[in-house]
Every structure is written in structure tokens, then in C-alpha cells.
């Protein structure tokens, strides 16, 4: 079974296999035995080849946080099938929320044609006001939020019509 590990944003493919008495991780050219022993309280002993270290690890779903050598690393475990599915989408694009927060105003309607840079909506997060503008000229296909609504990061706020139509 193959997984993609996005470590602090960089993607690495890896495969884990069992060898007698150990687990072996294959990542690109490299391949090494590895082990992980829980020491209690979120602390683990990690082994990768000859390297051994203690680390604090927390996980939630496919997100892993590792505190190692005084630095915290964020790792996303991605199933390659999901990546494939994501690349299959496309065509129409969207304006996403750059951060979690609350929608203040929505300044466009479905069917409206907007110019690049035009204000689509404003939102607020942790006392900061942010203006979301159109990344390019186009037609609004869908508005997926309303003033007062709380949205997570990377939520689709406004969807554009497919470009072929929008540029007509």
C-alpha cells in the first residue's frame, strides 16, 4: 500500500512492507528499516535505519504533528487515489477562503460578470478584515456563502462558470 506524505508541504511517496522481524519503508531511492515505540504521554521512540530519536507525536485523521529536535513538523498522509481524483476535476474554478472566519459581506450575485481584481466578498478572522477579489475576469456560477456564516479555511466561497463560457 502506497501513501504520499506531505511533510511541511513537500510531498514524498512511501511504501511500507514487513520483513521478518521489522518494518521496511521505501521512499524514492531509499529504503530502511523503521520502528516506533510508544513511551506514554504522546512521547515515542522513532527509528529510521541507524537514526534513533525521541519525538512527541499527535495525530488526528490523516494529519500528524511531530515535535522532533525542537521543531514541530506537520505531515499530511495522502492516499494517492485522492490526488488522482483531485487532478481529474478542473474546468470551472473557485474563490476559496484563505483562512477560517466569518463572512462579512457578499458583493456579487449568481450570473454576474466580474473583472479581475473586483471585490467578491469580505470576511473577518481574528479581528482582521480580508477582501476576497476575483482572480480573473469571469462569470459567477455559484455563491456558496452568506454574511454572518462561519467558514473553515479553503472553503469554496464562490464558484466561477467554466472558463470557456466565461471568456465569451
Amino acid at each position: 500500500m502506497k501513501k504520499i506524505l506531505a511533510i511541511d508541504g513537500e510531498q514524498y511517496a512511501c511504501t511500507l512492507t514487513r520483513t521478518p522481524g521489522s518494518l521496511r519503508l521505501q521512499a524514492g531511492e531509499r529504503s530502511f528499516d523503521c520502528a516506533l515505540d510508544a513511551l506514554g504521554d504522546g512521547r515515542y521512540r522513532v527509528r529510521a535505519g541507524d537514526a534513533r530519536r525521541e519525538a512527541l507525536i499527535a495525530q488526528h485523521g490523516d494529519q500528524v504533528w511531530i515535535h522532533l529536535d525542537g521543531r514541530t513538523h506537520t505531515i499530511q498522509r495522502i492516499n494517492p487515489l485522492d490526488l488522482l481524483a483531485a487532478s481529474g476535476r478542473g474546468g470551472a474554478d473557485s474563490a476559496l477562503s484563505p483562512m477560517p472566519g466569518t463572512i462579512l459581506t457578499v458583493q456579487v450575485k449568481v450570473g454576474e460578470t466580474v473583472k479581475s481584481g473586483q471585490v467578491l466578498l469580505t470576511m473577518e478572522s481574528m479581528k482582521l478584515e480580508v477582501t476576497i477579489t476575483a482572480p480573473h475576469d469571469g462569470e459567477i456560477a455559484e455563491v456558496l456563502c452568506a454574511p454572518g456564516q462561519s467558514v473553515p479555511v479553503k472553503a469554496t466561497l464562490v464558484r466561477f462558470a467554466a472558463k470557456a463560457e466565461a471568456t465569451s
Partner: protein
Amino acid sequence: MSPQPIRRLLVANRGEIAARILRTARARGISTAIVRHPDEEGGLAPRLADACLTINGATPVAAYLDVAEIVRVAREWGADAVHPGYGFLSENARLARGLAEAGIRFVGPTPEVIELMGDKIRARNFVVERGFPVAPSAVEADDPATFARRALAVGLPILIKPAAGGGGKGMRIVRDAAVLETELATARREGERYFGDGRLFVERYVERPRHIEVQVLGDSHGNVVHFGERECSVQRRFQKIIEETPSPALTPQKRADICEAAAGIARAAGYVGAGTVEFIYGAGGEFYFLEMNTRLQVEHPVTEMVTGFDLVAEQLRVCEGEALGYAQSAITTQGHSIELRICAEDPAQGFVPATGTIHLLREASGPGVRVDSGVHQGQRVGSDFDPLLSKLIVHGRDRREAIARARQALRDTALLGVTTNTAYLDRVLAHPLFAAGDYSTAFLDEQSAVLSGKDEVQPLDLLMAAAALSDRQLVDAASSVPAIYAAMGGWRN
């Protein structure tokens, strides 16, 4: 009048500052309560208070800004004093008045002084009249019709500020006359939303200035002292993230000048309580009055670390009517202190606020390390409030020792589950200009390329191993290889 001890204190705030105020109040044997909106969960402060009072409002922030609501719960609980912390209603004269009408003391200066200093324009005029320097400026209220023109006449670049503002909220630099109108409109909206007051003024923007402030304290018997300065120039988006004392910029003479100016302003205002006078400090040693904050500052702990005073205890004593009981000469400083603000934000994405759950929390400790935390393991961090989670404060015999301790304490801090700025703060501390003390408020912007540089992912194999092996699915799949392959595994590689 003989001192009236505070017996029941309501802390009308949340997060780290509520916890910090509660610690001092509890050690003084005072019964304590805090407020809390029904939408909030977790938090360290509720664990430290004797009571937790519900305040209602359309949003959590609205509840914390609702004077009537705070007065109501204070009265119902039987508070004899309310400490407002910083932010929210801490500089709101209506709260001070509303409490006074209910016979409850407000831990802060009189409503008149709050109003004087809260109106940036009146405050500037007050200070100018006393002979202290302020930067060239234009005030909207003087003649709204000509404001834009007068603003430009101050000379670009200019800084737009809400007349009722503070803490950097709603401030915008304008370097290009073409965007002036848009920026004025945005600043006005923000001023209305955060301070209920859309009036503005502009000031000449001093390029690459330092932000230096002085802690002052006055009692109700006419005594005013200062506790030295704090250097607060390390800012992103006008928000301080690292503060220190003493300032690496000041000569002993300049320090005396600026501290005495601050104490002089406080004395002129008949100031009672803890307050901070902020100055813009230019490269040539000139300094201008910026504003006076009539409350405790986020960065007050660095002053406590070098003077040995507990400023919250002093606030409470003054509020009880006690005289300071010491002279300026009794306030000495020892060593150097630095504060780091640990925020839920992603510096790699333009400091965008981060949310999540703190799955694991280990805080720094040891000699010279103090943590003023507002969070606990298991807590959910939402987007309702500002992103400050906790403050790491260190003390060293000199600046070099303080920096070394700060860097070690950052490495000892593990907060897993929410993106924070700890690695970014460490890169700032490691920057040669920071080490040299040679920086201005433009420092983080000017050095953003260096500072945003990601750490090289060193222990890559270890991280991959930990991530893969903590994945049940992956380990199970590896282990369910048919027995024949498993047995052959040893020979095939």
C-alpha cells in the same frame, strides 16, 4: 480614606491575560470570577477562577464588548472590583462609569483619563500643550471635507489611524496618493466595527522607526513612578510579536529622557493605575508621543522580570486605595527580559490565523523561563478571538543569555494540532540584526525573505517513519502480506 481591600474580583477578559490576573488575585486571597460566552469551550482561565459567569451576545466578541452585560454579571455575582485586562472594554470609560454607578470598582484609571487618552486627537493635543513632541498630523474632525487634502499635505508616506483605536487595529500606511480614498474607507469601516467610531486621523509615517514604550504607575495619593521602557519594534501587521527590556537602542541618557517624559505625561494627567506611554523613536534619537494605553499591556511581563514587581498586584493595591509606598529610586532593574507571543497562525501563509485542536501541549520551564499561557491540552482553538495562545517570557543576566534562553525555550515548546509561529519566532531571534539589536518596526517586512525561509527538513527519514508507522491502515496493510512473501522478504533484498 483608609484602603478598602478587594474581596471579590471579576476578571472581564479571557485567555492568557485572564489566567495571569487570576494568579495574582488568588495568591492575594481574593475570590475570583471570570466571564464566558456560551459558545466558548475550554481555556485555562476558567480552571483558575472560583466562578465562571455566562455573558450573552450575538457573538462571543460582542458579549465581551457589552458594557451592560459585564456590569450585570459583576453586580449579580457581587463583585467589588472588575479587572478588564487588555483589549475588549479595558479602555472603555462607559464600563468604568457603569461599574461606579453599581458601586463596583474598576481596576484602571478614572473615566475622564480613559476618555482623554482614548481620543487620540485630544490626547495628542494634551501632550503637545505640556511641551512633549508629537509627529506632524491631520485630524479628520477638524474639517472632514478637506481631510483627504490635508492628509496628503502632511507628506507621504502617512499612517491612517482610527481616532478611537489602539493596538494597531485599523491602521494603514499609504505611500501612494491614488489609494488614499480606498484605504480611508477601509480604515473607517474597521474603526466603526471595532471601536464603534469611524473618525480618523493621519500622521506622518516615520520610516524605520522604533516603537518604545514606558510603563507608568500612579496611586490615588498623587504619586507617579515609571518602571523603565520596553522595546516593541518587532511587529507584523502593526502587532508586536517580540518585546524586550531594556531597549538595545537607548543610551542611559536617552532612557532617562524618555522615561521621565512618560512619567511627566502621566503626572500631568493625574494618572491613577498602571498605564503605558508609547513613543515613536527615530534613528536620530528623536522621539514622539504616540499614544497612552490606559491599561495593562500584553508585554508587561518583561518589566516584571527585570524589576521584580508584580504589576497586577500594584494595580490591585492602587485600586484598593493604597499609596505606592516606594519612591522612583526603589525601582531598580536586573538583567534582560524578552517576551515571545506564541500565536495560532501560519507565518508561511502571510500570518493567516490557524485553527484546530491542541492535541498535545508541553510548555517550556526551568531557570529564567516564565510561561503566561491561556490554553491547555485538548483545547479547541477557533477563529472567534485573536490568535495569541500563550506568551513565553525569559530572563537572562544580559541580552545574549536572554536570547539563548528564549531560543531553547521555544525548542522546548511543543503545541501539536494547531499551526503556530514558534519556528518563525526562532528565525527572528537567530537573525544577525536581531542579535545586534539593530532593528526597526520595518524589520520583519524588510527581512521577510530570510525569515520566511523554511527550515530544511533535516530528519526526513525519521519523520517519514513516524508518520507511516503511526498510520494504522498502512501498518496493517504491510503486516497482512501473505505468509509466503513475508518469509521470502529476508532473501529478496
